[in-house]
């Protein structure tokens, strides 16, 4: 985009520059034409204050062309993610906590309670019978809770071998297939492992 701010008195050149930058998508270039030292200094000051890369050159007729690059906003999701998560792994070996129906209810109850924590665990790993949680019925409570955890950024891994063993590979509804190495790495790298 090019804007001509020649002949405009302060603060118009800066205002026009600001407005144009707001309209432009990321990774765009704005060229501002000015014809006074005051305008040149002001537009450059403005751009630098916004941490934008700016350069200027004198044109053929003596005016100054200022080039401003509107960079892309770098969403560094990973580091942010780490700050909001506990560096801990939830390691599940079974689809219930203890025996029978109570065990299943407890598992769901436990997972729901995790959602209430101020900071969630970074990773949930399901091995052996725990893969029945990530492959449970679409409308079940457990899938609903696990999907919520996933939406909040918790990584959920289900052991590939275990999925095959229980013949539920096609039924994975939440998270991704993990592998032994990945599992072991996660367990040893984290600050602590919780097993139910």
């Amino acid at each position, binding site marked *: 985009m090019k804007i001509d701010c020649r002949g405009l*008195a*302060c*603060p118009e050149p*800066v*205002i026009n520059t600001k407005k144009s930058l707001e309209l432009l998508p990321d990774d765009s270039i704005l060229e501002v034409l000015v014809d*006074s*030292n*005051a*305008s040149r*200094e*002001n*537009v*450059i*000051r*403005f*751009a630098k*204050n916004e941490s934008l890369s700016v350069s200027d050159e004198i044109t053929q007729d003596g005016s100054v062309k200022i080039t401003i690059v509107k960079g892309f906003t770098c969403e560094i999701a990973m580091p942010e993610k780490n700050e909001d998560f506990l560096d801990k792994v939830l390691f599940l070996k079974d689809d219930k906590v203890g025996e029978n129906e109570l065990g299943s209810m407890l598992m769901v109850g436990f997972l729901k309670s995790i959602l209430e924590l101020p900071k969630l665990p970074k990773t949930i790993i399901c091995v052996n019978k725990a893969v029945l949680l990530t492959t449970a019925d679409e409308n079940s409570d457990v899938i609903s809770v696990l999907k919520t955890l996933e939406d909040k950024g918790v990584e959920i891994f289900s052991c590939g071998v275990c999925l095959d063993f229980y013949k539920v590979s096609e039924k994975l509804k939440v998270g991704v297939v993990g592998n032994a190495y990945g599992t072991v790495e996660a367990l040893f790298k984290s600050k602590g492992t919780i097993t139910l």
Partner: protein
Amino acid sequence: MAPGELSHAIGTLKSSNENLIIGMEASNEDASVYRLDDNRALVQTVDYITPVVDDPYIYGQIAAANSLSDVFAMGGDVATALNLVGFDGCNHKAEVLNEILQGGLSKVTECGGIVVGGHTIETPEMTYGLSVSGFVHPDKIYRNNTPRVGDVLVLTKPIGMGVLTTGIKADMLEEKAIIKTADILAQLNHKASVIMREFDVSACTDVTGFGLAGHAYEMAGNNFTLEFDFSKVPILSEAIELANMGIIPAGTYNNKEYLDLHVEVKKEYKDDIFFYDAQTSGGLLIALRECDAQKFVTRLKDIGYEYSSIVAQVKEFSGKSLVLI
């Protein structure tokens, strides 16, 4: 008008007689002074400005304060004032003009003067100000280029007004800050001038269109070096934010271009553009004995000049008239 251009335009005008104490040739001075008799001299000054705020009454007050200031800078008292109006009647109702004039009147009354008339013409751009007449004792005129080595300089109002008024035009200042700015702009230098007469003051000027640097240069000439501790110069924080965003008026850059060859920068300041920032209705820059300065600042703060500060030292001329430390 840019300082260099102005000197060029009026440089060859000559007019004088034996009663003229201060006239055009003393272009550094704030107002003219004409002897009437042994005890009284007539002080005359004129000034007008375009709007700096949206409210017409407050604009009137600020323009009047700006015009009256030069009389106080000479150590004089205001007697009468004439309104000078350029009114944009196409876009504004007559009530607006009344508001402006009421604002101006309030300030003339505040310092004991009276408004005795004026003149209005239709103009595309609004202007308002006053032609002011006052009196001063011929032996008690405060000139602006007579500081003494060893004196210190006190500034009574903060700077940054050029940037702030530009920010107001750009709609980039919030209401609270606009009110704060307007209050400072409308504040008269009258009371400061009265208090200053109780102290051993060697020189006084008001800080207006040429910025702190410009008016300090008028004080120093090539006879003194004024060493400014820039960290002590009061600048409104809202002004600093705006300046960072490039909201700096052309007048300020003009001042810098004209003055920076007279300035030695011993310490870099990120905000040193404010040294050149054109002021409207600025404060008084007063040179007085160092031993009295703190007491003077306390007196000033007590009666409402809360930003008063000791900002510089007067030294012997050492190559450049102004130094930033």
